């Protein structure tokens, strides 16, 4: 497996981290800009996302239309989103168009017009998104669960709230942009086919003299588990459960990840087997590890018809508790087979790799190469996972249900 990670920190503290993948024709990039929704003031929920839309509305010599047209003509498939910590701008194109795409994004990050004339249009888009969430019960549940598991400002939804979005002015936009869009704390991940020296020179030319600024993240307050029901007119009840886990940077992260894999990695894992295959209680159930820089969590989700929701909740919680008693060797063997092939297949996607290496840098200040992850997975054992689970048994559950009727929480959930 490839293990060649290249990185460079410019004098303004912008980090470029890159992984060559010579077998591909494509190159992908991911900008993580420290302008996520944790920086929204309490009464300005949605500001970071508002700006993420606004910066795409024309930059330097290109107006809104020209920007989209030029990216399309370069064949750049792109996305932008806001997470807790970052505004993320990603794109993938044929390798020969990488520098052209980076030049446009350098303008977007440094010289956006932030046009007053587009303020109302973007506001309408934001309001539509807020409305659309009301029709997506699983997404709505995810927002409500996260909000309760990570205290503000970390668990906030990037979409913000209606009142704040309605009152946003161009001054709010410009102030936030000036405060948050800078080189310090920005990470550019590139993966695929490229020449490192040329890439470094291109990035130096485009972003080397970008204002450095100063990066600082807000504190993460202590959390308290809680259970909540959100009343919602639907046929199904959505069930969300979150509980503490170690963050990505922790030495034991792979043990935590392995334990969640035994719960939910593959259709033969415990949750799909017990909840879906044996009992037919739901169509979709899964659990995943999520990590902030200093705190992690396991998030589970299931959606099921209201009159079967109680049983689904009970069976799911029973499985989470049973996990504390340890995992079996055959479960670990299957998990390792899945992870091994997933690691190798990551080398087929420049987009996935550019995002992973940028996020690695954010969490660790370095990149775990695929080789290193592979060796760490080899070291995972039944004993090491069970020792982790003995120390960190699933407990202190935060439970959110969303549907027509509340459910009964079994004893000792909290």
């Amino acid at each position, binding site marked *: 497996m490839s293990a060649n990670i290249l990185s460079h920190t410019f004098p303004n503290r912008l980090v470029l981290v890159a992984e060559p993948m010579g077998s591909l*024709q*494509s190159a992908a990039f991911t900008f993580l800009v420290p302008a996520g929704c944790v920086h929204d003031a309490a009464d300005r929920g949605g500001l970071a996302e508002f700006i993420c839309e606004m910066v795409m509305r024309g930059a330097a010599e290109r107006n809104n*239309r020209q920007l*989209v*047209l030029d*990216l*399309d*003509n*370069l*064949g750049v*498939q*792109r996305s932008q989103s806001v997470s807790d910590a970052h505004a993320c701008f990603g794109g993938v*194109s*044929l390798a020969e168009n990488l520098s052209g795409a980076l030049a446009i994004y350098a303008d977007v990050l440094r010289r956006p017009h932030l046009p007053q004339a587009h303020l109302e*249009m*973007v*506001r*309408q*888009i934001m*309001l*539509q998104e807020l*409305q*659309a969430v*009301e*029709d*997506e*019960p699983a997404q709505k549940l995810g927002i409500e669960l996260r909000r309760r598991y990570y205290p503000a400002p970390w668990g906030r939804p990037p979409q913000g709230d209606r009142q704040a979005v309605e009152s946003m002015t161009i001054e709010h936009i410009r102030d936030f942009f000036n405060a948050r869009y800078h080189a310090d704390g920005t990470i550019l991940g590139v993966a695929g086919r490229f020449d490192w020296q040329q890439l470094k020179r291109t990035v130096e030319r485009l972003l080397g003299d970008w204002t450095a600024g100063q990066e600082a993240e807000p504190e993460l307050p202590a959390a308290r588990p809680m259970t909540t029901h959100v009343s919602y*007119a*639907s*046929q*199904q009840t959505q069930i969300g459960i979150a509980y503490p886990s170690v963050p990505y940077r922790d030495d034991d992260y792979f043990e935590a990840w392995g334990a969640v894999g035994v719960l939910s*990695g*593959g*259709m033969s*894992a415990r949750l799909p*087997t017990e909840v*879906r*295959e*044996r009992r*037919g*209680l*739901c*169509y*979709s159930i899964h659990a995943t590890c999520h990590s902030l820089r200093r705190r992690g969590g396991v998030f589970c989700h299931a*959606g*099921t*018809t209201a009159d079967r929701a109680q049983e689904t909740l009970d069976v799911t919680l029973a499985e989470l508790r049973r996990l504390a008693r340890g995992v079996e060797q055959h479960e670990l*063997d*299957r*998990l390792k*087979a*899945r*992870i091994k*092939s*997933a690691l190798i*297949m990551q*080398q*087929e*996607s*420049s987009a996935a790799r550019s995002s992973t290496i940028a996020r690695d840098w954010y969490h660790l200040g370095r990149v775990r190469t695929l080789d290193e992850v592979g060796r760490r997975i080899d070291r995972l054992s039944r004993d090491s996972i069970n020792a982790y689970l003995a120390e960190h048994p699933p407990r202190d559950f935060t439970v959110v249900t969303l549907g027509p009727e509340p459910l009964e929480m079994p004893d000792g959930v909290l």
Partner: protein
Amino acid sequence: MEFCSHTLRNGLEVVAEVNREAYSTALGFFVRTGARDETDEVSGVSHFLEHMAFKGTARREADEVNREFDELGAHYNACTTEENTIFYAAVLPEYQDPAVALLADILRPSLREEDFDTEKQVIIEEIRMYEDMPPFGADEKCRAAFFGAHPLSHSVLGTVESITRLGVEAMRDYQRRLYGPAHVVLVATGRVDFDALLDVARQSCGPWPSVAAERATGRFEPIDRFLVLEKPTATQQYAVALAAGPSAESHDRYAAKLLATILGDDLGSRLYWELVDSGRAEHASLSHCEYQGAGAMMTYLSCSPETIEDNLQRIRDLYRQAEQEGVDEDELRQAKNKVRSRVVLAAERPRGRLFMVGGDWIARREYLSVSGELDILEAISLDEVNAILNTYPLTRNTTMTIGPKTDIREPK
């Protein structure tokens, strides 16, 4: 890249695009059966049967199927459409043979009654999940109205009633008739050992008895219709519109895809600028759907209820203007650049390529390399694209809207 194909004695075809540089191997059994091959009595059986394939065979208990896929480290799944049911897995090359044997085995499931009853609950949950999500089944209802008596009007999922009513014997009968070897293509892409693939295919599928079955193609006459469904609990208003389009056999499908990109791509299209960029709608798009003997151009819109009439009128005006004035060279160039990049990027992964190679073969018994497809796209002229607007007018369509608003004027 090397293309290989072979037909077993019983009629099962094996096709592969071999890329010796790839890290993985993608494998898929493409079965030529879907909702259009069902009768009303068994509505939803193709999709339900796809689920049942994972519930055990003569050789394997229900739990063993998923366990073995996971032991191979496979990334696997299955899907059912109006006309195909596809079972696929991406694995490391060393697991090619056991993965093919396992996929072949599940195409002959036991269909045990107890598993059938449990899985029925899962299917009903899946239907209910979609009923709670936009566009709340309006897409299938619009398809039913648009295709009328044509079999493409059938629902893939079926309804809670049709699934509840369905008996295991009817599924067994359906499986016997429609999973015959002449209806199945084994497709492989990425790092494929074709000789070994053929050996496993012969061992696993060679004994399957031949069964004759013909697909009813039928004709349909698209008609103008405007339908409103009430969904009081919805927050947004949604609309789906279907107009006729080129079929899977028609060369015009390339021009139709470029036209859909120009008029209704997610980003940078005419619909995007008119409705999405301006904040008038949350989403507005046009896409081309191709089937055996039929095709459709599908418009999808989501917006707030109070703007639905205005947005539908804007879409109608935009389509009318395109029909009268056509699109221009710059737009076509931009669309070609976008599509070219998409085709190449999607083909980088064997599992992305699997669906292109398998889709081409099952629809047309045709193999097209990535560069072959790009050459065809590049050669499409502006006249060909504009001719689509005359042959398949977008303004002549079946529109269905669903949401809290019911007094909605039809666009003029």
